[in-house]
């Protein structure tokens, strides 16, 4: 193992194809982790990608790809630009190749399966059935037809039929089903086993036995052993498993539709201004610093800043926000958004992997591949499952051999093969990741970015949602409503000058009002920001401070003659900002932050789901109570400094609550991290996506109940999937072993087991896709 410092490691995402179950991805991950020079590896079954953190001085990307290929799976080097979109394209291409390959193999196998069944009928009439397959009578009309067309087939010897069956089966085993054997062997060499092991051992045993009978039929007959062959079972098993794999690959491809739609948003070319000319270039050739011309109706090719022109831009594809946003010089423009009505000239700042779209795609991909804690249960079972099933199959063979009816060795072989085939753990491996993939993809389409399985699982248990007030319940764009003081203009000028360096929304509102009134502002001297209280500095040589009651208390002042007015403002949901000049309170600036229109609906929806809403704010109690009453929140914690928000969350958790914190993602970061689920509210595309467990791109409070509802439904689907996957095996394995045979004479054949296995995998994926539709109806 490498001892290089993490700082020198590089990250690489390699598209991998051919993985069908959790054991496949686990094995590739183990092999990568053991490769010298690799620090960490994560292989994602659903997205078909391996993310490797490696030391470039010890190992090259080619060697990593080679290491994956040695495990029996396909892998290619990723596209050179490293963007999430290129990776998705490569994965799509790999998946399409895989589906085409599976389809070809399936067609050959199905043709061979029908032919082997037809050929097995006359052979069975010559040497008896051994253990008859219930599918055989279905082929009787075909066999009869063949006899009528070619009556001479009745004269073909049993030996010839067996060689003909071997000729039909060999291409299926050697080509169509070859990957089962190569992957099983690669797994075996690494002391691990997966579904390929079960298929390879099951079909391999039946095929080897049949070949032995074909080669030594005379010797077996001479020793009293009827020369039965099971070629048709081998071919049917491979054909049905390939059918299941093909259906599964198609369904899995649908679960990644959300990612594909996001990738489909990006334009392919950009019109770049160069030497006074406009040149149309492929997106890959765009560089930061380029200036692009975006005409009405065109997409903005990359992230940047508007340098010329004015227009409305539709950002709904990224944020879900339906109203186009006005863009003027100096505004940020986001790649893939649609320019509506005016021409814009945009200076490109970010391209490729650094763009907002690429970051969103990467985030959704990571989320879709992340493991929910409930997955650990499935992983634990999968890890021991295959060796346990092989043990059960051996025990089944022994029991049938010793206790079963004649021909006992044949009955034993068929029962053991059936156990191996029915127990393929595909459904169990797919139960959790398919549901996580569908729901995170659906969430992204609704403007709700959920960072994977763990936040989904924690969101399900929430019983309390704590809302930060500013920017969450309110718009976060406050405006000055009233200025109270002896000289309003002078008061506003003092307050705005000292707030010029503040980044607080209230400060920005005061500055905006002063600018709108045409007041000339000056740069404050000795500016000081007092977090959660206000600001202070010197303006025109006078000491000025602006802030809340806590600031007054800190300065040892009282509101004085403005106390009653401040109380009244607070009761009207206005925030009073006290302005202190030369040590005495000179006036109050009343600022109002409009309440978001969907706030009330969101709180009502949460109440309907049994979740209590709490409002946490640094604002004064009167204003907070007034805003809370407007949206229907009953519990308010006001006058909370940012650092105390975390303590409030912790206090709720200690009281046994499962708490979500909804904040703006930047100054609420500690509280978001402390909460069981941190939900950050994005505003437009300027979104701090890394801040919380869930990001609401649209900044709409309704996203909170929507995300929790999505989480609850996802967990319900995961439980259903796991239940059915377990029940299928708990019932299927004993029945395949012959548990019902002594009492009812009921038993399964290998071909029936293969069909059941295919149905179980497909039903799990279909159940997860159903989740997508149910959420769609509601959304």
């Amino acid at each position, binding site marked *: 193992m490498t001892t290089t410092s993490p700082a020198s490691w590089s990250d690489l995402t390699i598209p991998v194809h051919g993985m069908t179950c959790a054991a496949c991805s686990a094995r590739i991950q183990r092999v990568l982790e053991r490769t010298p020079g690799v620090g960490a590896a994560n292989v994602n079954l659903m997205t078909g990608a391996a993310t490797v953190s490696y030391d470039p001085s010890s190992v090259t990307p080619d060697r990593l790809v080679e290491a994956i290929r040695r495990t029996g799976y396909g892998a290619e080097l990723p596209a050179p630009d490293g963007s999430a979109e290129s990776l998705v394209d490569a994965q799509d291409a790999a998946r399409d190749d895989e589906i085409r390959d599976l389809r070809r193999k399936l067609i050959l196998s199905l043709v061979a399966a029908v032919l082997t069944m037809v050929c097995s009928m006359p052979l069975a009439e010559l040497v008896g059935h051994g253990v008859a397959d219930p599918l055989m009578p279905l082929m009787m009309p075909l066999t009869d037809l063949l006899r009528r067309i070619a009556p001479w087939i009745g004269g073909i010897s049993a030996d010839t039929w067996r060689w003909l069956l071997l000729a039909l089966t060999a291409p299926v085993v050697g080509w169509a089903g070859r990957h089962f054997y190569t992957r099983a062997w690669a797994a075996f060499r690494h*002391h691990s086993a997966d579904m390929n092991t079960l298929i390879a051992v099951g079909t391999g045993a039946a095929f080897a036995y049949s070949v032995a009978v074909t080669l030594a039929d005379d010797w077996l007959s001479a020793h009293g052993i009827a020369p039965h062959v099971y070629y048709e079972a081998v071919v049917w098993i491979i054909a049905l498993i390939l059918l299941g794999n093909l259906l599964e690959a198609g369904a899995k491809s649908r679960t990644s539709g959300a990612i594909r739609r996001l990738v489909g948003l990006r334009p392919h070319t950009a019109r770049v201004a160069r030497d006074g000319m406009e040149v149309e270039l492929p997106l890959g050739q765009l560089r930061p610093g380029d200036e692009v011309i975006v005409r009405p109706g065109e997409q903005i090719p990359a992230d940047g800043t508007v340098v010329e022109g004015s227009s409305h831009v539709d950002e709904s594809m990224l944020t879900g926000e339906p109203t186009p946003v006005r863009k003027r010089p100096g505004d940020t423009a986001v790649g893939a958004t649609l320019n509506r009505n005016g021409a814009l000239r945009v200076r490109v700042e970010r391209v490729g992997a650094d763009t907002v779209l690429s970051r969103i795609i990467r985030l959704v991909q990571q989320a879709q591949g992340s493991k929910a804690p409930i997955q650990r249960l499935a992983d634990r079972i999968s890890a*021991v499952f295959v060796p346990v099933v092989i043990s059960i199959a051996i025990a089944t*063979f*022994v029991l049938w051999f010793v206790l079963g009816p004649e021909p006992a060795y044949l009955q034993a072989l068929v029962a053991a093969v059936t156990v191996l085939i029915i127990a393929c753990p595909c459904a169990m491996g797919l139960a959790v990741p398919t549901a996580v993939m569908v729901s995170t993809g659906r969430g992204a389409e609704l403007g709700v970015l959920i960072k994977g399985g763990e936040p989904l699982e924690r969101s399900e248990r929430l019983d309390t949602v704590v809302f930060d007030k500013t920017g969450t319940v309110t718009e976060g764009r406050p405006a000055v409503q009233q200025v109270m003081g002896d000289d309003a203009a002078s008061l506003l000028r003092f307050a705005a000058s000292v707030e010029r360096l503040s980044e607080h929304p209230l400060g920005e509102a005061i500055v905006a009002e002063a600018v709108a009134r045409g007041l000339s502002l000056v740069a404050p001297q000795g500016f000081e920001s007092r977090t959660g209280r206000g600001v202070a500095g010197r303006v025109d040589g006078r000491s000025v401070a602006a802030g809340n009651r806590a600031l007054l208390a800190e300065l040892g002042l009282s509101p004085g003659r403005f106390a009653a007015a401040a109380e009244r403002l607070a009761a009207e949901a206005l925030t009073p900002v006290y302005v202190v000049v030369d040590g005495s309170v000179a006036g109050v600036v009343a600022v109002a932050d409009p309440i978001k229109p969907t706030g009330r609906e969101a709180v009502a929806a949460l109440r309907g789901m049994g979740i209590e809403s709490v409002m946490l704010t640094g604002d004064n109690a009167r204003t907070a109570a007034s805003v809370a009453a407007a949206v229907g929140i009953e519990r308010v914690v006001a006058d909370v400094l940012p650092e105390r928000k975390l303590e409030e969350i912790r206090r709720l958790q200690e009281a046994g609550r499962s708490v979500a914190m909804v904040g703006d993602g930047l100054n609420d970061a500690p509280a978001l991290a402390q909460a069981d689920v941190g939900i950050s509210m994005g505003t437009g595309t300027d979104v701090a996506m890394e801040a919380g467990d869930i990001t609401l791109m649209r900044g709409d409070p309704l996203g909170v109940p929507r995300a929790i509802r999505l989480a609850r439904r996802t967990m319900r689907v995961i439980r259903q999937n796991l239940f059915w996957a377990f029940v299928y095996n708990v019932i299927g394995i004993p029945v395949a072993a012959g548990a019902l045979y002594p009492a009812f004479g009921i038993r399964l054949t290998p071909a029936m087991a293969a069909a059941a296995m295919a149905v179980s995998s497909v039903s799990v994926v279909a159940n997860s896709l159903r989740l997508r539709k149910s959420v769609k109806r509601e959304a």
Partner: protein
Amino acid sequence: MTTADLVVIVGGVAAIAWVNWYFFVASRRRDATVRHQ
């Protein structure tokens, strides 16, 4: 019980023991060795 039955029973038990040793015990030992390196 015939000799063939006995052979199959003994062979079966041995096969089960080997499968469990190979996939559980030997694989763990191998993982520990790799981690050590």
